[in-house]
């Protein structure tokens, strides 16, 4: 961990269900639980946006909740600002989280003013009428009106509700925000507004973001560095243009090919072959081998490790070349 690192995860794992019973322990049976997050190690630098992409069930939301302190990891350590901690939660309110569904993430029985003021009151960040002034300031900062404090969440559209959630998270004066699919529930035009707002806030308030999404286009626009997850593991980490222009893991390549663009001159679609395996029963060896066009015997026999090469890392026995010729032979 260097001085620039804000947060470091080392070997963080979490398994759901399948607690070993007395009997299975006696018989030496393996745990049948689902390893949602499997030995994830990564660092997030001060002031950057680390994007994390993956498909549903890959464990990215579980990882976000572990970092937020909502779920305890089974194994591994989390270091925040150089201090080891079971989770970043001990550093509250320096860490805040923004959720995907702006309808369930705001308490519908509370007024907007009360919602935004909650972190201020819990941590005694302001006193008396200064709370009200601060709430008004925050609402205007996220593009709402100070007059909105008396309204209830149901009076707002999805995009406006996400702005309220952002105002609430800023009220705790954090320096680290965990964003779990913050724009997935929003319309395209509103998504662009929220992404731009997040960029402006990051610049003005010197924030660090951990941005989880399944949308490759969104991560292209928002992230400085990007991690790709598949079945609980990080399979590749690279900085923003590199990951898109010269991906090294076959899964990243296939995922990029499968994504749609607005180009009408090439109408071909590129589905990833095979079906996504159940996270409960991942394939032996490399988790992607069952769908990988470059699969060889070693991929079944030996699980590859995440190998760093400068700033980038890839978990693959046969990574694609790091120069710009990164496509499969036909």
């Amino acid at each position, binding site marked *: 961990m260097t001085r620039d690192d804000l947060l470091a995860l080392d070997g963080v794992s979490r398994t759901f269900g399948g607690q070993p019973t007395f009997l299975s322990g006696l018989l030496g049976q393996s745990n049948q639980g689902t390893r949602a997050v499997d030995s994830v190690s990564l660092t997030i630098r001060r002031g950057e946006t680390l994007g994390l992409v993956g*498909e*549903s069930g890959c464990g990215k939301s579980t990882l976000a909740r572990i970092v937020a302190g909502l779920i305890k990891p089974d194994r591994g350590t989390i270091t925040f600002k150089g201090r080891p901690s079971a989770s970043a939660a001990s550093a509250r309110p320096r860490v805040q989280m923004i959720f995907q569904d702006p309808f369930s993430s705001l308490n519908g029985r509370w007024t907007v003013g009360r919602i935004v003021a909650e972190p201020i009151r819990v941590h005694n960040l302001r006193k008396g009428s200064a709370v009200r002034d601060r709430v008004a300031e925050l609402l205007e900062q996220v593009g709402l009106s100070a007059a909105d404090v008396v309204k209830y969440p149901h009076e707002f*559209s*999805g*995009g*406006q509700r996400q702005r309220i959630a952002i105002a609430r998270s800023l009220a705790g004066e954090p320096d680290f925000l965990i964003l779990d699919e913050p724009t997935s529930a929003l*319309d*395209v*035009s*509103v*998504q*662009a*507004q929220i*992404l*731009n707002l997040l*960029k402006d806030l990051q610049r003005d308030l010197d924030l660090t973001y951990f941005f989880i999404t*399944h*949308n*490759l*286009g*969104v991560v*292209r*626009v928002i992230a400085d560095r990007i991690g790709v997850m598949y079945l609980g593991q990080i399979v590749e980490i690279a900085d923003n243009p590199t990951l*898109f222009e010269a991906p090294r893991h076959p899964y990243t390549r*296939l*995922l*990029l090919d*499968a*994504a*749609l*663009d*607005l*180009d*009408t*001159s090439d*109408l071909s*679609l*590129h*589905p*990833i072959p095979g*079906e*996504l395996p159940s996270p409960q029963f991942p394939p032996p060896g490399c988790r992607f081998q069952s769908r990988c066009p470059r699969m060889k015997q070693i991929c079944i026999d030996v699980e590859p490790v995440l190998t760093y090469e400068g700033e980038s890392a890839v978990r693959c026995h046969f990574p694609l070349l790091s120069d710009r010729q990164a496509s499969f032979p036909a």
Partner: protein
Amino acid sequence: MTPILEVNDLTVTMKRPFRTLTALDRVTLTIGKGEVLGLVGESGAGKSLTGAAIVNLLVPPLRQTGGSIALAGRRIDTLSRDDMRKVRGREIGFIFQDPSTSLNPVLSIGHQLIETMMTHLPIGRDEARRRAIAWIDRIGIPEAERRLDQYPHEFSGGMRQRIVIALALCAEPSLVIADEPTTALDVSVQARVLQLLKDLHGETGVAMLLITHDLGVIAKMADRVAVLYTGRVVEIGPTSAILNSPHHHYTHGLMKATPTPNMQTQRLDAIPGSMPNLAAIPSGCSFHPRCPRSDATCRDHLPRLSGVESGFACWHPLSAGGTS
């Protein structure tokens, strides 16, 4: 070429005690035989409503109060409930967004396929069963014969959506309405489902109304596209023409706001504001409060669609190259 579907001035309203809200305002669309028409817009634009109105599945207080809908030259909006039921499923197939709610969880998928075919096609059980197995095989599910007797929960989300597609197409309809068929799916699964839709479209020649909020899906799938805003068609025409040189500022704004993996920019051009509520649709061109080019004319006068096959509803359209 006679169009398979002709929607003319379709108007859907919602009666409230003190006012009547207009959800669809004189929507006019045609779909030719074997054509894919994309219907794109943001939530609240009336995309799904258009689909529901075509198959007469509007939920009160929503009601069709104007216009006509014709399938292969025959009015279907005036049909009785029983006659309409025969049209649905037999002549118009429907693919819903969420595969987990559009399959009956207590019936095996074979049962659902066989019953659908026996209801709508003049074939016996044995033939229906044979065809059901062929369908399951066709949509890329291995061991079709064994899996015929399995229940929806035994399939993955992507497989379920492919089963829904088979169900919609097995009665050999002439038109299929696909309402956000891939929105609930992941990127890799989405490509697979779209590929299947595309292949089946090629094989059967079924015409398709593809409802989506995703311009990427439109770009890859649709022959023509209609852009909907506050219940009005604001632009319609061939997909490549519209995506390469949009005339309406909303279409243009939507494109610039859509992030794609191969874009070079680090900042999107967002459209300010949000889709207005039905109860507060702005006067004149309903897009004028969010439009960079609006003036007094836009505020006071409703622009007409310049053409039914291909046209736009804008007082100050963009010309080729993206300038007004």
